[in-house]
Structure formats: structure tokens, C-alpha cells
């Protein structure tokens, strides 16, 4: 993998951030290192590695221990990928900085600015950005975001690589947890750089049947994905609908380790009434609870069968989270 523009600046940024953390952290600082290898049965492969640093560890939905009511957050990340898709080899890198502000445990906003670069059939780069607003009150959480980014991780190949397809996504997420229910609604609208536009909705309702220290949720979900134009160069169904039962579980495993498990079973159909079925699976094991330094290893799998043809996607991943 060749050295890219983003990398030479990373060392300087890390040093300046590490110095700043000591003075400006009101909560524990957070270092995350991660890597994954994704492969599909039709020859896509994508190896990624990333590093991110933030002055205050932050999860607005499920706060870490010791989270302050008001805080000023900032961070930096570097994400590198090397892949082959539709018989094209490419390298991709994203260097990003962000600034966030949290108010009274109810509002949180972040502004991201990044340098996104690809090397492959064509070398190109652009400025990535995103703004997001989060609001939380009692059992209601919502998040609104808008940005400009590449489509490398949407698997829109080969156009994501050879034409460096980009998107302006706006999305709105609502999580509502009345009593033992958890309802989720995600609405995404996007305008793509090739003139296409797409929408995606994910609706989910789960019921909490947790016992003891074990968190167990069962329910169902519906996804709808639409494209205004049926372009070549990536998957652009006019209407794709997927629905089925969903399960989630997490809790203590052996010794001080913790597990998490998610399974979605799907039946799907497109505008041609072409039916199929599949599943999404994500299992992970964590070396300690999330508030302390920990390693995490996991495995993600998607499998679908349509017209007796089996397609699969697999992605083992690993991460390390350090707090100080």
C-alpha cells in the first residue's frame, strides 16, 4: 500500500491532540484501534484498519460511567482500506477531525471534516464533511445528520471506485423505549454524484425479555430501499423490501468477558417480484466491560439465497479501546 497524503500529517495531529487531551479532557480520553477483513462470494475483498482519538469518550445513547452533563469534544481519526471489487484493485484513506458540544445531557452536536482519497483506476480526493444533532429526553432519542462522503463502504461497486461515486446523505433516526419495548425508525434520503437518488427506511420493534444480567430483545423489522434511476455500475433496485424476525442478546460470558449476538432473518423481494431469503448475523466477544480498557473480536455474516443462488458476505473484525 502506498503512502497517501493524509498519513504524513497524522503523527503531528496525534501528538498535538495527546498534548491537548491532558488540558481539555473533562472525561476519560479514548483511543480506538480497529481492523477488519470483508469478503463476498463474488470476489469482493476489503481490508481496513483504523485509529481514532477523542478527548472525551462519548456515547450519547448509552453514556459511559462518569459522563459529564456538558462537555466540549474533539477528535481525530485515520482509516485506511485496501480492496478488490469487480476486478479493480484500490486503496482508500480517510483522515478526519471533529468537534462536538454536549449540553445538559439533552443536546449533542458534532461537526466532521475530512480528507477522503482513493488510488486505483483513477487517483482522486475530495473534502468529506458531516454535521449531526442528537437529542435525548427520557425514553426518546433522535439524531439528524447531513453530509458529503464517498460510497466505498456502501459497496456500490465498481462505480464507487472507477467514478469515485459520492453521496449527500440526510438521515433521521428515532429510538423510543417505552417500558419493555424498543422502537427504532431510520429514514435516509440521498443524492448521488451521478444524478441518481436513493431512499432507505428501517423500521424495527423489539420487546425486552431480559433476565438477570442478560439483555435479550426479540421482535421484527422492515427495510425498504429505493432508487429513482436504475443505473449500471452498482446495485440500483427500483424497490427492494426485506422483512423478518430480529433477535439481540448480550451479557457476561466466562470470567470477565462479555458476549453480544444479533440475528436478523429476512425474506425479501424486489420490483420484479423476485423473492429470496437470507440472514444477518453479528457475534462478538469482549475482554472486559465497556467502561474499562478492552479488546473486542467479532464476526459479521450476511447470506442470501435467490433463484437457488447463494451469496454471502463475511467480515471478521477486531478492536482495542483504551481509556485514560
Amino acid at each position: 500500500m502506498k503512502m497517501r497524503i493524509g498519513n504524513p500529517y497524522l503523527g503531528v495531529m496525534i501528538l498535538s491532540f495527546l498534548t491537548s487531551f491532558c488540558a481539555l479532557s473533562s472525561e476519560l480520553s479514548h483511543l480506538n484501534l480497529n481492523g477488519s477483513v470483508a469478503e463476498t462470494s463474488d470476489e469482493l475483498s476489503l481490508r481496513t484498519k483504523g485509529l481514532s482519538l477523542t478527548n472525551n469518550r462519548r456515547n450519547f445513547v448509552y453514556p459511559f460511567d462518569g459522563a459529564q452533563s456538558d462537555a466540549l469534544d474533539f477528535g481525530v481519526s485515520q482509516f485506511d482500506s485496501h480492496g478488490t471489487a469487480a476486478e479493480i484493485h484500490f486503496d482508500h484513506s480517510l483522515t478526519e477531525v471533529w468537534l462536538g458540544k454536549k449540553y445538559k445531557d439533552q443536546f449533542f452536536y458534532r461537526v466532521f471534516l475530512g480528507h477522503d482519497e482513493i488510488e486505483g483506476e483513477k487517483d482522486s480526493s475530495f473534502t468529506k464533511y458531516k454535521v449531526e444533532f442528537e437529542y435525548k429526553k427520557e425514553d426518546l432519542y433522535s439524531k439528524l445528520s447531513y453530509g458529503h462522503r464517498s460510497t466505498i463502504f456502501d459497496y456500490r461497486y465498481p462505480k464507487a471506485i472507477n467514478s469515485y461515486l459520492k453521496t449527500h446523505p440526510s438521515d433521521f433516526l428515532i429510538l423510543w423505549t417505552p417500558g419493555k419495548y424498543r422502537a427504532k425508525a431510520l429514514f435516509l434520503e440521498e443524492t448521488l454524484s451521478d444524478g441518481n437518488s436513493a431512499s432507505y427506511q428501517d423500521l424495527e420493534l423489539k420487546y425486552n425479555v431480559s433476565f438477570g444480567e442478560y439483555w435479550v430483545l426479540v421482535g421484527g423489522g422492515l427495510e425498504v430501499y429505493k432508487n429513482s434511476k436504475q443505473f449500471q455500475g452498482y446495485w440500483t433496485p427500483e424497490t427492494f423490501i426485506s422483512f423478518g424476525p430480529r433477535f439481540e442478546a448480550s451479557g457476561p460470558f466466562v470470567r470477565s468477558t462479555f458476549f453480544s449476538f444479533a440475528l436478523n432473518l429476512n425474506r425479501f423481494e424486489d420490483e420484479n417480484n423476485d423473492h429470496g431469503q437470507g440472514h444477518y448475523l453479528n457475534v462478538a466477544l469482549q475482554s472486559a466491560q465497556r467502561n474499562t480498557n478492552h479488546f473486542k473480536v467479532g464476526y459479521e455474516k450476511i447470506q442470501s439465497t435467490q433463484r437457488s443462488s447463494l451469496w454471502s458476505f463475511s467480515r471478521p473484525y477486531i478492536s482495542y479501546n483504551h481509556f485514560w
Partner: protein
Amino acid sequence: MLIKVSIDLEDILPKYLENRRKEVDELKAFLASKDLDSLKTRGHRLAGNAPSYGMEALGSLGVKIERDVQNNDLTNMEGYIQEIENFLNSVEVEYVDEDEDW
């Protein structure tokens, strides 16, 4: 055979077609040696890749190869490979702007 393909794929389609032409001899060799796993894998990849390049006809042949190998039915396999070869020998590509009606 004239096929309309997005102008956005103009820089990568020639190489894709060249790779498919090279693959025809491999498919014939896999069939001759009854290497069904390799035949099935190539059929699956063709079914996945070809439509992204605007080559639905090639993709359909990939689907047929994968399906028939799965069913242990090699009766039409030689014919499918011949159809792929004929397609690749006769295909002419017209690059068009997808934003215009076509």
C-alpha cells in the same frame, strides 16, 4: 450484438471484457477436467459482476452455469460456455450518458 453501457464504465469495461475472454479457455478446461467447484465459482462471480458492467446477458449465463453445476447437470454446460464465447466475440458497446433516456 450492440449493447448500451454507461459512459461512466468506459475506462474499465474493456479490461473486464478482456478478462472474460481469457476466462473462456479456463471454463472449457474446468469442464473437461470435471472441476465442478471452479466452474460453479466462476459462474457465481460472472452472475455477480457482469450486471454491474451492463452485461445482463453474460450474468444470466453465469446464473445458469452455477445453477446447473449445483444440480449436477452438465448437459448444457458446453453450450453455455459457447454462448459466452459468441457473446464476447460479437459484442459491440455504445457508451451512453445514463442521465439521458435510453
